[in-house]
């Protein structure tokens, strides 16, 4: 038994889909084989910004083995319409134009045409035979350059919305918003220390190992089926319905196993093209991206410019903070600057705050969600300024954070008031950790060492819609159908909550992720919502089953249902100790008392997903000659509310940390003067490998989320937020030089040390 009296929650069972995944048996999107299958490929723009004057597909169509070629003219042209895709609000006209460019291409890699052929090689040959005539236009890839008057304009009809009102100004700034609380000027006047700094971050990619894929079959009755790897099958159904202008009832999405997403596998890219090609040919069509297509043709997370100013009194109290945040949206509006603004000062209780956010179009791929979207950029700025203030005041940076930490009742600058949160508890756990208490030995090899800390916040979405359908087998096991795609162990975390509720073992539940015709609408696996939101539905399902089993026992025992108790997994009649049975014992008889036992539950909880807070501690060693930063030790501390399966909570923390390390030290889209990404491969983009890292230590703090029956908070996203700032603070500790531009790659570190004599 684990703590808190739970039998299943807090234990570490082997995940239900584990054997399939270690034996190679699990079927991912690209693994599907169908009779008569054709293979598709995409023609992409070589220019970052150009008008499409003509597309001639005749040579491609005449190529032996080619079955169909499509362009944007085969897509219905749809009006502006906003839709919530789970982690972002998207304009569906833009979504359609991003799938196949109409009129203009807005980034290198923008899809312009699709081909279906008898095999992939023939399709790729045909792509080379599509002749596109372009009028090349001037391009802009940097956020500040794109905001300047006279910058090349991506959307001639787009006027800046400012403070909620559309202006007459045509510019690349899609939106400017402001959050204000108190009077920042007064707050800075009270402060004894005021620090204002500028920061830049570069475009980075989620880097999931599985490339995007979609296999479509549009049959003669007009029914479209798509097999794909997605974070949200129903979101894909909605997007297909809108982009292809067909009723949702004509679209079925079959979610196959998904090889990583991190927010990047919500928007559709290939799916509508594969559908058009299938409609044209009458055959199923499979499309998969190459790795360079993933880098250049899907949504990374934005580069950004931030200016942050914070002030504190000499007794260590934050009085005011302001932020100017300009985020690249990419080709179409919709950067995560709004989410970043909601997170930027949230670990702190600051009375006077002003935040100005700018969503700016540039000639890069349309950005997309990436694990706590917008928050990592923001924390890089705030957390290094907080480090500087702590140093000026001569206080320990974690003690400063505890003293100024947000707690229940603290208001966020963007409005909401915190419910019960674990911000201070998390920071205190870091402060008291063995790692932070240990002393950092000096390097014996001429290198320098330093320690850094940083905190981070992510909202965790408020539950969302989830559906679960169960049937009880006579042997007492339960088949559990769910709509949440399993991206990293949620079959287990949801099944465990059902098992806990009805007194079974995790292995007694058989979870299945099913297609959109087989379960109620379920929102995306994103926003750290699944173990919270679908787990909430699992608890409700357990409650429904208990009620139903009491009814069955009532019939079997001929006693009133309301006189039957359920405790410790056993049903019993209050007035006769003989009349009792476990869930399993009753399951074997229940079918005789009213037919098979089933339950269907859908939920959309009102409460909070439970804000997530993290504090990280890192020790680094720096080679002054090369500028390379090695990580000696890393500890991540995080409030998980209640850890359902601690191993997978640790895994989320470790994985998020390492993505944050990659973002902090090495990863970036490197653009040349032609607006072309020059490092669109894993070799050159260079994500962290085993050799770059130590073990990642974890400390799970549990401050229960009052909005969930078991206290669950989402855990997936916040661990990516602190690492770049923690690393910058460690580099400063080691060298005396502050780095305010990401990534802090060897050339940048080397240059900064040379310039600053560090």
């Amino acid at each position, binding site marked *: 038994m684990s703590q808190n009296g739970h039998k299943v929650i807090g234990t*570490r069972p*082997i*995940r239900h*889909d*584990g*054997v399939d*995944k*270690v*034996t*190679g*048996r*699990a*079927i*991912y999107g*690209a*693994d599907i*084989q169908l009779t008569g299958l054709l293979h598709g490929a995409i023609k992409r723009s070589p220019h970052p910004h150009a008008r499409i004057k003509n597309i001639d597909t005749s040579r491609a169509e005449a190529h*032996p083995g080619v079955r169909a070629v499509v362009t944007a003219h085969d897509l219905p042209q749809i009006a502006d319409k906003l839709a919530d895709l789970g982690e972002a609000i998207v304009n569906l006209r833009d979504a359609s134009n991003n799938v196949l460019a109409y009129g203009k291409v807005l980034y290198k890699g923008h899809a312009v045409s699709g081909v279906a052929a008898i095999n992939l*090689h*023939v399709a790729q040959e045909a792509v080379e035979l599509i002749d596109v005539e372009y009028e090349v236009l001037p391009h802009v890839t940097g956020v500040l350059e794109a905001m300047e008057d006279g910058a090349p304009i991506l959307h001639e009809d787009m006027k800046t919305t400012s403070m909620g009102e559309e202006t007459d100004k045509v510019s690349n700034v899609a939106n400017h918003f402001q959050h204000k609380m108190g009077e920042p000027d007064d707050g800075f006047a009270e402060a004894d220390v005021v620090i204002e700094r500028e920061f830049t971050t570069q475009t980075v990619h*989620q*880097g*999931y*190992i*599985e*490339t995007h894929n979609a296999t479509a079959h549009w049959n003669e009755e007009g029914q479209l089926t798509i097999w794909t790897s997605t974070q949200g099958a129903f979101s894909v159904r909605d997007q297909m319905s809108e982009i292809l202008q067909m009723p949702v009832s004509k679209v079925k999405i079959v979610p196959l*196993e*998904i*090889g*990583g997403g*991190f927010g990047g596998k919500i928007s559709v890219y290939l799916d509508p093209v594969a559908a058009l090609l299938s409609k044209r040919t009458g055959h199923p069509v499979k499309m*998969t991206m*190459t*790795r360079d297509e993933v880098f250049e043709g899907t949504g990374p997370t934005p580069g950004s410019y931030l200016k942050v100013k914070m002030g504190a009194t000499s007794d260590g109290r934050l009085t005011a903070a302001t932020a100017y945040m300009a985020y690249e949206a990419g080709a179409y509006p919709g950067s995560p600057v709004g989410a970043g603004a909601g997170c930027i000062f949230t670990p702190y209780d600051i009375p006077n705050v002003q935040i100005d956010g700018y969503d700016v179009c540039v000639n890069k791929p349309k950005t997309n969600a990436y694990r706590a979207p917008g928050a990592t950029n923001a924390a890089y700025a705030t957390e290094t300024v907080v480090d500087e203030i702590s140093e000026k005041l001569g206080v320990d940076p974690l003690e400063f954070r505890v003293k100024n930490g947000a707690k229940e009742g603290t208001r966020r600058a963007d409005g909401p008031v915190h419910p019960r949160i674990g911000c201070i508890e998390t920071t205190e756990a870091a402060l008291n950790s063995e790692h932070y208490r240990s002393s950092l030995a000096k390097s014996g090899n001429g290198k320098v060492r330093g320690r850094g800390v940083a905190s981070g916040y992510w909202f965790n979405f408020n539950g969302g819609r989830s559906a679960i359908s169960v049937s009880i087998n006579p042997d007492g096991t339960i088949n559990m159908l769910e709509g949440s795609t399993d*991206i*990293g*162990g949620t079959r287990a975390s949801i099944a465990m909550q059902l098992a806990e509720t009805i007194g079974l073992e995790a292995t007694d539940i058989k979870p299945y992720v099913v297609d959109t015709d087989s379960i109620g609408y379920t929102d995306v696996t994103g926003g750290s919502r699944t173990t919270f939101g679908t787990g909430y539905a699992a608890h409700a399902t357990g409650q429904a089953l208990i009620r139903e089993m009491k009814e069955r026992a009532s019939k079997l025992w001929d006693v009133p249902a309301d006189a039957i108790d359920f405790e410790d997994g056993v049903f019993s009649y209050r007035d006769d100790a003989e009349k009792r049975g476990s869930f399993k014992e009753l399951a074997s008889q229940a079918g005789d008392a009213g037919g098979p036992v089933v339950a269907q539950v859908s939920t959309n909880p009102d409460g909070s997903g439970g804000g997530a807070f993290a504090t990280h501690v890192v020790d680094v060693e720096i080679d002054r000659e090369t500028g390379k930063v090695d990580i000696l030790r890393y500890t991540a501390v995080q409030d998980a509310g209640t850890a359902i*399966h601690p*191993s*997978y909570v*640790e*895994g*989320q923390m*470790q*994985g*998020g*940390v*390492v*993505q944050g390390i990659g973002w902090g030290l090495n990863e970036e889209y490197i653009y040349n003067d032609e607006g072309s990404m020059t490092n669109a*491969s*894993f*070799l050159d983009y260079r*994500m*962290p*490998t*085993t*050799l770059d*890292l130590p*073990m*990642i230590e974890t400390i799970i703090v549990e401050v229960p989320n009052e909005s969930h029956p078991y206290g669950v908070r989402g855990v997936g996203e916040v661990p990516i937020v602190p690492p770049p700032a923690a690393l910058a603070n460690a580099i400063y500790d080691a060298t005396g030089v502050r780095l305010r531009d990401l990534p802090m790659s060897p050339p940048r570190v080397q240059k900064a040390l040379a310039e600053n004599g560090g």
Partner: protein
Amino acid sequence: MSKKVHVQTTINGEAVDFLCEPRNSLLEVLRDDLDLTGAKEGCNNGNCGACNVIMDGRLVNSCCVLGVEADGCEITTIEGIGSAANLHPLQQKFLEHAALQCGICTPGFIVSAKALLDENPNPSEDEVRYWLAGNLCRCTGYDKIVRAVLDARNGA
């Protein structure tokens, strides 16, 4: 399209013949023609290791080997390393240590780790990290993968 070539191999202990175009990679043949989809394509240029197989005792990226080059070779894929009823110790340790999240890189890691333990049954953590640096995982941060491999030492 060029003329297909007849290739004779041994895959997971069984004689397997196939026809392929000279331009087809071994990965394509395994996945598209032989229904061995445990090897995954993450990059198709040898950077991620998701397609790794053991060929005549050597760890290779099957995306960087041509199907025709496999003629006369013995190949072990993830499907040949263990089955649900008879898991290899590495597979068991990956499960126990929760060393996978999305699972797409897992077959490649297990094949690579098997090749390591075949060559060095008792590697140090540094040796494990050095050997596995050719396999990318984006979910786990590698901690639990390295622990699983260390825990499988000598049991393999």
